[in-house]
């Protein structure tokens, strides 16, 4: 509980404050919830093995050769789950970008970050942080996908000028 609310409860017997701007009475909810999920990556484990080797992997349906990125374990065209992991050639063309100035609180440890979408030469598109000067970006410029290490210590793919 925030110190100021504790104080208000002690003084008034209630967690009710006056909203600074409107002057209206607000009950300050005391039931705080922190959310963090556990997300299964069991079926895309090879993708992360690839990252450790600096490779970008996608999945390919053995039957129809459809290529998936992000990887998925089932092919809806063939109703088949017989897929293989393939290394994607890590070069492509930049399609669009932005720079995120106002960040979510869970990204507050990072400076404003550029995000780009590139079309890989083999077809799939990829969205990732852009490791380069966003002011130098030109439409259609050649880029590569590489693996970098995050401030939080984990490996993640990123887009960089070629």
């Amino acid at each position: 509980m925030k110190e100021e609310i504790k104080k208000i409860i002690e003084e008034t017997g209630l967690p009710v404050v006056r909203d600074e701007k409107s002057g209206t009475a607000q009950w300050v909810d005391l039931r705080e919830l922190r959310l963090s999920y556990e997300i299964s990556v069991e079926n895309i484990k090879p993708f992360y093995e690839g990252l450790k080797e600096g490779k970008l992997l996608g999945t390919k349906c053995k039957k129809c050769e459809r290529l998936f990125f992000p990887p998925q374990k089932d092919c809806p065209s063939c109703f088949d789950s017989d897929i293989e992991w393939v290394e994607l050639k890590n070069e492509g063309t930049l399609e669009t970008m932005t720079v995120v100035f106002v960040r979510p609180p869970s990204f507050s440890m990072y400076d404003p970050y550029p995000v780009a979408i590139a079309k890989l030469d083999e077809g799939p598109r990829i969205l990732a942080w852009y490791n380069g000067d966003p002011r130098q970006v030109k439409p259609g410029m050649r880029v590569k996908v590489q693996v970098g290490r995050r401030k939080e210590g984990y490996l993640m793919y990123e887009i960089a000028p070629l």
Partner: protein
Amino acid sequence: MSENVAVIGVGHSKFGTRKDVNIAELCWESMKPAFETANLEPKDIDFFVVSNAGMWSSEAAVPALIAEYSDLAPKGSMRVEAACASGSAAIRAGYTAVKSGMADIVLVLGVEKMQESPNPNVIELIGRFGSYFWEFENFGLTFPAYYALHGTAYMMKYGATEEDYAKVAVKNHYYGAKNPYAQFQREIDVETVMKSPYIAWPFKLFDCSPITDGSACVILASEEKVRELGIDEKIWILGQGVGTGTANLSRRETYTSLASATYAAEQAYRMAGIDVDDPTKYLDGANVHDCFTAPEIIAYEDLRFCRRGEGYKLIRDEQTYIGGKIPVNVDGGLKAKGHPIGATGVSQAVEAYKQLLQKAEPGRQADINRGRWLAHNVGGTGHYSYVTIYGLEKR
């Protein structure tokens, strides 16, 4: 079964920072006028649908909450969510309920109380509307950033400028200033937009719709009920199209269009008997999903108000002001009226009713000659798209 479905009552709360009311009180603010315009009472409702994206507000069982507050219990209900298109999804649920004959009179309420949470939390939560795992978890995309990727692609492809985007904000503030229900009731100029700080390049603060509390309500009725109740003032739902996009933006072919919106528009036009190649000839105006400035321009093209790559010229030439080719967002749009996520689609329906029945406030009433109004409501970044055509005459 009812061949045609009418909107017979509408209500709209003041949009903005509504720390003066709780969520049930905010709902009642739009429900009361909806009952009054329809000349109905809660007991007359067969079924009700509540659109509310939630997360940032405390109450999850909003249908039950308002059933209690406004004597709707024990009538059937559901809460629907389709991100920023939740309101149109609720209208669809109500529309199909009446059309199928499962209900004769349905109340559709859209409500959002986003300011129960601090702004940073809302920014965090709203960024999670796309592919959480692949595009949020590692890359921290925000809602403005998703659309900024489209805004950049559009500028690069067609040569539109940040000033063109600013002109959308200027127009929507111009009309917001004339709408007593709008969050921002003041005009701005291009310089105000250009000088505001970057949120997600190329979008600046004034390119973005705000974080809003608000509610909107419509009452839908079957053709038979309209006759039985002798309802004079009503509009008809002539058609509605719905589309869904991929979760990952990286799974899309283009960033200068929303495929789901193009798809929804074609369905809606066909259903309403509108020439898909020349829809503006059939419409008196439109509300489009201007959560940011660039998407309004992209919407002009997805809805075929102009050719691909010419949307920015429509705003440059002021063709989407009243008196132009097609007036767009003359209630201020999401940009100036505000964007209480779950209420937006319902608010667009309220605006269609007011425009077509010539009840809009002075200075923002479009000329009504063709008797049709369009609402384009997008959830996420084209993750869901709804296009609805309203008309004075049934099909």
